[in-house]
């Protein structure tokens, strides 16, 4: 029995469908990410769980109890907002204490809990400071402490890291994950940042236009995207349409000039995606796709290459591991393994 269950959750604004028939079962202690581009319905979903938005149809159950009739202030969920939403007229400690005050917790116990929460996020020394005098990262931590201190049944994070700069964001990702592991709170994160979702979650829910495209753990979602959309949104992807060869070459897939042996795997039908880091530069061969290096960009630990071929542009990522990467304008040959082709529209999955 799932801890938090969303069943056929739907939200329409007039003719506009924000979320359509969303089903999701979240286990206790799980870290789930709702990932998708803006307007995909992920924030609406979070707001329905929080009780700020009423679903058009469908139900939300928490620990076996229906939440439909429970108002937002009785759900006992912790929420961290994108802009933190700290109370500007209260100090960090007063902000964190607010939820406990609402529970009418005695003063002494409250002070202890507030101190613990601020310590958890490493801000015990700034307890008496007002939000306006804190950095974005510090405000972020106060918001997290404020949401966690009430020991919520579920922690909802609404793009909590998107207002931080890249370096701080990475630090906070690690910290968020370790805090979540420590307290073990069931967590739902809304984000449009695929690396954030990959780094933090136990499972990722990829959403597009109000529908769930795929629910999977980060590795499987990346390696075996269920649709072209997931493939393109989670990381970079090359899309090909292979043709099954017949006659003497049966059991091989043709993509442009290349004829790739399937090694016993069925030839995928429809389109496939191939991750750029799975593609190698090789000697000319029947199974390699010829092309010309159009551009290459050095990115420190890897090279990002754009190769022009007869089936369109192909992205290739090569580790900066000492093997020289062909110069721009050079003819190159690309090859990849049969099992690195992931069918995304129909047909079998490798």
């Amino acid at each position, binding site marked *: 029995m799932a801890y938090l269950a969303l069943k056929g959750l739907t939200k329409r604004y007039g003719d506009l469908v924000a979320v359509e028939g969303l089903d999701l079962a979240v286990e206790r202690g799980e870290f789930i990410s709702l990932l998708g581009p803006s307007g995909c319905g992920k924030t609406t979903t979070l707001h329905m769980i929080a009780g700020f938005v009423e679903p058009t149809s469908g139900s939300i159950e928490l620990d076996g109890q229906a939440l439909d009739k429970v108002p937002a202030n009785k759900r006992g969920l912790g929420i961290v907002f994108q*802009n933190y939403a700290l*109370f500007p007229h209260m100090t960090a400690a007063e902000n964190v204490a607010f939820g406990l005050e609402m529970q009418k917790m005695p003063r002494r116990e409250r002070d202890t809990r507030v101190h613990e929460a601020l310590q958890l996020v490493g801000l015990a020394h700034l307890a008496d400071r007002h939000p306006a005098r804190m950095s974005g990262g510090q405000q972020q931590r106060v918001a997290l402490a404020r949401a966690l201190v009430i020991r919520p049944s579920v922690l909802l994070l609404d793009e909590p890291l998107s207002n931080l700069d890249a370096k701080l964001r990475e630090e906070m990702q690690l910290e968020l994950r370790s805090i979540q592991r420590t307290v073990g709170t069931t967590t739902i994160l809304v984000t449009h940042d695929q690396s954030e979702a990959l780094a933090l979650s136990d499972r990722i829910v990829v959403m597009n236009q109000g529908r769930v495209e795929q629910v999977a753990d980060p590795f499987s979602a990346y390696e075996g995207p269920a649709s072209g959309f997931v493939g393109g949104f989670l990381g970079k992807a090359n899309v090909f349409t292979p043709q099954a060869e017949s006659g003497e070459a049966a059991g091989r897939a043709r993509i442009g000039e290349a004829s790739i042996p399937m090694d016993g795997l069925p030839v995928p039908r429809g389109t496939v995606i191939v991750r750029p880091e799975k593609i190698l530069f090789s000697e000319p061969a029947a199974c390699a796709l010829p092309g010309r290096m159009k551009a290459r960009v050095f990115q420190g630990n890897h090279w990002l290459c754009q190769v022009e071929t007869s089936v369109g542009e192909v992205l290739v990522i090569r580790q900066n591991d000492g093997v020289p990467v062909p110069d721009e304008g050079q003819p190159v040959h690309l090859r990849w393994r049969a099992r690195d082709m992931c069918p995304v529209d129909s047909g079998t999955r490798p």
Partner: protein
Amino acid sequence: MNARLNPWLLSAPALVVYATFLVVPLFLVFLISFFNFEFYGGIEQAFSLANYRDIVTDSYYYEVYARTFGVAAAVTVVSLLLGTAEAYVLSRMSNRWKGIFLMVVLGPLLISVVVRTLGWALLFGSTGLISQGLMALGLASAPVNLMYSNTGVIIALTHVLVPFMVISVWASLQRINPSTEAAALSLGASQFTVLRRVIVPQIMPGILSGSIMVFAMAASAFATPAIIGGRRLKNVATAAYDEFLNTLNWPLGAALAMLLLLATVLVLVSANRMIERRYGAIFNQGQR
């Protein structure tokens, strides 16, 4: 044109207007308040504190000042309650309705105060609509006359001044992060607690500036107290007017006006201090 001169050049027209039409006349009034007045001889240029002594030692003037500030305080409190609630409701409306209702709120400002007050006078009399309505509903057994009463003055002044409170609080509400309300709800606060603990403290600057405007304008209002209050319930402005234009005792009128200015400034500055200290975090937000 250079950077140091530009601010002065840009504000020069306003400064000239202020100097010629506010500072100079105010200073002249201040001077006149020390002159002597003889009933048969007229105004004598002199320097004496006789006018101020006359006011301070006459219980009649205490009553006038007490009425002025009492009415101003009542108008401020009523405007604060009505205006803040109105602004909050306005801020929650969809954009289309917001525009319409903002016009409705500000509409009264487009009509002359005198005309609006005369309208109230029609409603307030013992045969007016309010009196008839109360009797028809059985809420009053005898005709109710709000003309020449403090209640009447308070109602009419509130109607005139409440838009200033609405505008001021509304501007403050626009700057609130709407998520703070959702955050408070998610932490278990009731709708009323959200208002009291989260919204109101954040709009304190708007409430304060609105209250200052309303109090200052109510304390110095002339047309409404003159028409609704009449000559029996004088406030400082109507008393000063009568000294200037009926008795022709300009020095006494000037002294009344100067004391009103002084008292109003004192009240506002101390209220300002008190509230800024209480809600320092909100007021200092801009200056990190």
